[in-house]
């Protein structure tokens, strides 16, 4: 299962139970009003960083990295790539 699929499945399971993963548009703005509440966003970030074992350190929590499934997928790929290259 791709990272994007894992992210979609998690978001649907936890926050949008009326949808199936395939019904979740990968560019849906998750931070917009009504998609996921603020506590849900915090929970989602904790899951992303734990599930993909991202070494987050003291990096800024840039909302653009968590705005959609596509954005999270790209953020995970960048973080893993940075960790792999020691950058």
């Amino acid at each position, binding site marked *: 299962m791709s990272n994007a699929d894992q992210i979609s499945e998690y978001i649907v399971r936890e926050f949008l139970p009326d949808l199936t993963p395939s019904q979740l548009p990968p560019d849906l703005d998750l931070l917009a009003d009504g998609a996921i509440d603020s*506590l849900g966003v915090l929970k989602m*970030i904790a899951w992303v960083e734990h599930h993909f074992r991202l070494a987050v350190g003291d990096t800024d929590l*840039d*909302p653009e990295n*968590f705005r959609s499934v596509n954005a999270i997928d790209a953020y995970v790929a960048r973080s893993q790539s940075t960790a792999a290259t020691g950058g």
Partner: protein
Amino acid sequence: MRNRDADQQALCAGMAQWGKTLSEGHIEADARSAFEPHRWRSLAGSGVLGLPFPQQWGGAGQSLLTTLHVLETLGETCRESGLNFCATTSMASTGVPLAAFGGDALRERYLPGICSGELIGAHAITEPDSGSDAMAMTTRAERDGTHYVLTGGKAFVSNGPIADVFVVYARTRPEGGPLGTTAFLVDRDTPGLSVGGPTAKMGLRTAPLSTLHLDGCRIPADRVLGRTGGGLLVLDHVMKREILFGFTVQLGEMRHRLERTVAYARERRAFGHPIGDYQAVSHRVVDMKIRTETAAKWLYDTAERLAAGEDVTADLAMTKILASEAALSTSLSAVRVFGGAGYLTEVGLEKEVRAAVAGTLYSGTNDIQYNHVASTLGLGG
């Protein structure tokens, strides 16, 4: 009462010895709406302020559960509920985020003072126009080189008039939704920071409350607690401990209230019998007992689950509702069992009613807590 191990019993016994000193003249202090530094120093001398914090930063390194047992004893033995509130506010608002999110330099500089009581902490979250809606805050922090510049205003800052250091929550990205808020540690003497005078209020009158104004306060960027944009993560962590600390103290206060009410119901006679012989009274006292023990179970069970790393979002909201409503209900019941005497200031029970009302409002109003639970059920819009 939950079982306590030998260490917990010893710590609680030590805390209980301070009760008389801390309580002396509490009714008069409430009438004067006076925070009394000498009383704070006595409280600090008990060591309670540093209980949950690492020993390397001046704390006692105790677990969350042990800390709660001692705080329950504080509530049970110290009648100065405003002082108790100041204590848990300083610990939760400032000590907790420093310990969990502060860098070593910040911990080294501030935590020993928070643990010893030489520093008093406060946090500034609520704003005049946004109340419980933390997402709607307008205080902003703009990056300027190696600093942030904070501008805005806060309201309902508990400990504000006496605080040496504030944890200020401000928007670093106004369009960032839940990731647009950051927590900053701000010294009281920072140019541009001004604290309003103590605000008169219904209860907890010895725990001063104020507004806070930030007019271009330049804060070094290393004063960020946690990550930039992670303010709500800090706040979520803090509020869980604030609720547990504050309402476990109230649990102790409920235990004392119950004990006092039972004793009165046995002694006070009417129509030839102790009033406790009448079901109208005994059932009311039993209701106090049920509410007190229910609060205890929820507080400690939720704390155990939190310490185990479980998601306690809904449990904590329910705990806060149950404990605060229990405190209010039992405080009113005590007044009614005492009758006219309970209405007298000198008896000290009406003060407890006024204090208990506050518990339904601070740490997230009970209405907001209902919203939290509703959202976990997929309800509430």
